[in-house]
């Protein structure tokens, strides 16, 4: 059923044909959930940041794929064994690579990804400040944009004035 989600998203733009697995279940199943509400809360929060690797852009919290089920159970096992949130994430990254993280870690590979939004904003601000500053010191910019015919007519008018 993970493809159901994928399809409706695809429809948002242009309706990709998809394959859908006929059998379906709920994402987080009642049987998976931990008795301890605090631990379960941490597990849910962690699940939302981990990718179901066989799905398209779905977290294991949302996905109904069997792999997502296994990962949810795994996360809960680690938490019950006393791992901290960071240790669980490290464990999964060691096993499956950075691909499992929906929130990519800051590194040289992701520097452009994380750096671009603030860079665009800063550069834009600098550009605006420079441009607005320059425009204020050059009042000549107020002159209207005349084509040669209008230019000639203006000269003609001025001459008549004199």
């Amino acid at each position: 059923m993970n493809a159901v989600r994928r399809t409706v998203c695809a429809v948002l733009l242009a309706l990709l044909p998809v394959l859908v697995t006929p059998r379906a279940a709920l994402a987080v199943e009642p049987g998976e959930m931990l008795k301890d509400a605090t631990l379960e809360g941490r597990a849910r929060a962690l699940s939302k940041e981990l990718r179901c690797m066989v799905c398209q852009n779905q977290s294991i919290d949302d996905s109904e794929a069997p792999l997502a089920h296994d990962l949810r159970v795994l996360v809960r096992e680690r938490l019950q064994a006393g791992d901290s949130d960071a240790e669980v994430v490290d464990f999964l990254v060691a096993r499956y690579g950075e691909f499992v993280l929906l929130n990519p870690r800051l590194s040289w590979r992701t520097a452009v990804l994380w750096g671009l939004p603030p860079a665009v904003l800063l550069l834009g601000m600098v550009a605006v400040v420079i441009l607005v500053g320059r425009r204020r010191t050059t009042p000549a910019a107020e002159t209207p944009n005349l084509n040669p015919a209008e230019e000639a007519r203006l000269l003609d008018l001025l001459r008549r004035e004199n």
Partner: protein
Amino acid sequence: MIAELGHYALMLALGLALIQGSMPIFGTRSGDVVLASMASPIALAQFVFVALAFGALAVCYVTSDFSVMNVYENSNSGMPLLYRLTSIWGNHEGSMMLWVFILALFGALVAAFGGNLPLVLKANALGVQAWIAAAFQLFILTTSNPFLRLADAPFEGRDLNPILQDPGLAFHPPLLYLGYVGFSIAFSFAIAALIEGRIDAAWARWVRPWVLGAWMCLTLGIAGGSYWAYYELGWGGFWFWDPVENASLMPWLAGTALLHSAVVMEKRGALKVWTILLAILAFSLSLIGTFLVRSGVLTSVHAFAVDPRRGIFILAILAVFIGGALLLFAARAPLLKQGGLFAPISREGALVLNNLFLTSACATVFVGTLYPLALETLTGEKISVGPPFFNATFGPLLIPLLLAMPFGPLLGWKRGDLVAAAQRLLAAAMVAALAIAAGFALQHGGPVMAPFGIGLAIFIMTGALVDVAERTMILRLPIGTALRRAAGLPRSAWGTVLAHFGIGVTLFGIVSVTAWGSERIAALRSGESIDVAHYRLTFEGLFDRAGPNYRERVGRFVVRRTSGEWLGIIEPSRRSFPARNMATTEAALMTRRLSQLYLSLGDPNPDGTVPVRLYFKPQVLMIWIGALIMFAGGALSLSDRRLRVGAPRPAKKAAAALQAAE
């Protein structure tokens, strides 16, 4: 026969588009008025032939002509008429036909209603429009022909994907395409202005109604898609930061920026070069969105290589149009003279700020969507960029924009008074502060930021009301005079107020449902109950039911207040469609004012219990109501006399200047 006629009509349309793209532009360069004025009739003729081709495809679908491969693969004679019609664009080939149809429609509208446009501008703009049309018609004819026949016609079609068998398919794709393709008009006008090397405030006046119309359709299209995903997917999310969603959000952000910068250009003659660039970017992002979805790169970088013909073709279209437009821009932009001085604190300054943040937000979505693709193509490494990234980057960029939004309309043109604007907004700020206090008093253990989010939404809404109050002076003048002033306000001013108010409404809904929504997951036996918020749902059992082309297993639930008051029955189900061996989850929704109860079923467990997911979504409907209000604001503004398509020339001066230019 019908399919062949449609195929032939499309080829003729391509021929006409090629003529429309060359002759009039040649005419404007060589000063040949006859050639230049050919643009309009050819644009109309091209539309007629594209409409014939589209109509032929529609006839094949409605009559269930399964000898046409495209119809066989995506339709079924058992479907109701609505779905037989909408399945035209429920597939790749048909959706490209819709794209081209809307493109030709817009070209024809410019030709028919652009009587007051200067000849040169109109001829060049229609010429550019024809290049786009020709590129996509060629794309359809060479790689995605919907009119191909099957040697042996099957008796029955393979059915439309069940998830698409929904009224949403009737509205959502056409609205999105109206938005995407609507930006092509701004693009064509921008290129025409660059070809001519001349632009003035009147340009913005002509282009703004098209941008506004496209923006309205895109707003409604995105909101409609969001609601569709919300009720169809079974877990009640309204936005997933999926690449396909991002592909529609990027043109919306750029288009919103364009809408605002065009105001500055129209009123004050400033930001000309920037507005031209935005017009190019908005349509380029629409093209990139089409590429992302149509080429298959989203499924995987490798899917692109498996069937590369379509992908390469669209990539070539992208390279030619975006690259060409930006090259032309780089060459010609220095020729466009800037005008209209303004102080940093002014209406213009506020709109520049708006553009700065919207563009940065757009760049964020762009890099987040394309970075994983780029990294994998270049280095083979796979990373994921999901909702946590966008929440961490897009959110902080939007907050200053939203905070500043109520100030903009209260600042004067050229030189504004920030202190005076802040004083006028004092009432709005106080209401917002009260809302924050109320939020903290009422919430039990919700997120700390939630009341501030609600406060911001209230600030935006009351800020919009302050704008009305200031313009009508309702608090200072007698009520009758104020009402007369309100009636005399230009509709575009009311449009701004409504659209900004709508943003506040949507934000309210998003904050409320994200922070205070509750969820219960349980496995129930018949007769057992489950509580969420102050509601109690009792499971009464499962039964089977047959639909026109599916079977479904329905769960029956009685909804009561926890106090015992009976509210109604809801029936979520799971449907299976034998034609494609597929299943869908049909969530059941119960609306309580602006909030909703949302229930979806899982497959029964071996022990006889049924897993259910139950949500309470407080004020969730405000998300989409806000979008409807934005749309209404756009419509009101569009009906303003000043912008009305075909309205007599409003400013003699501008008209005279252009006649001199011709």
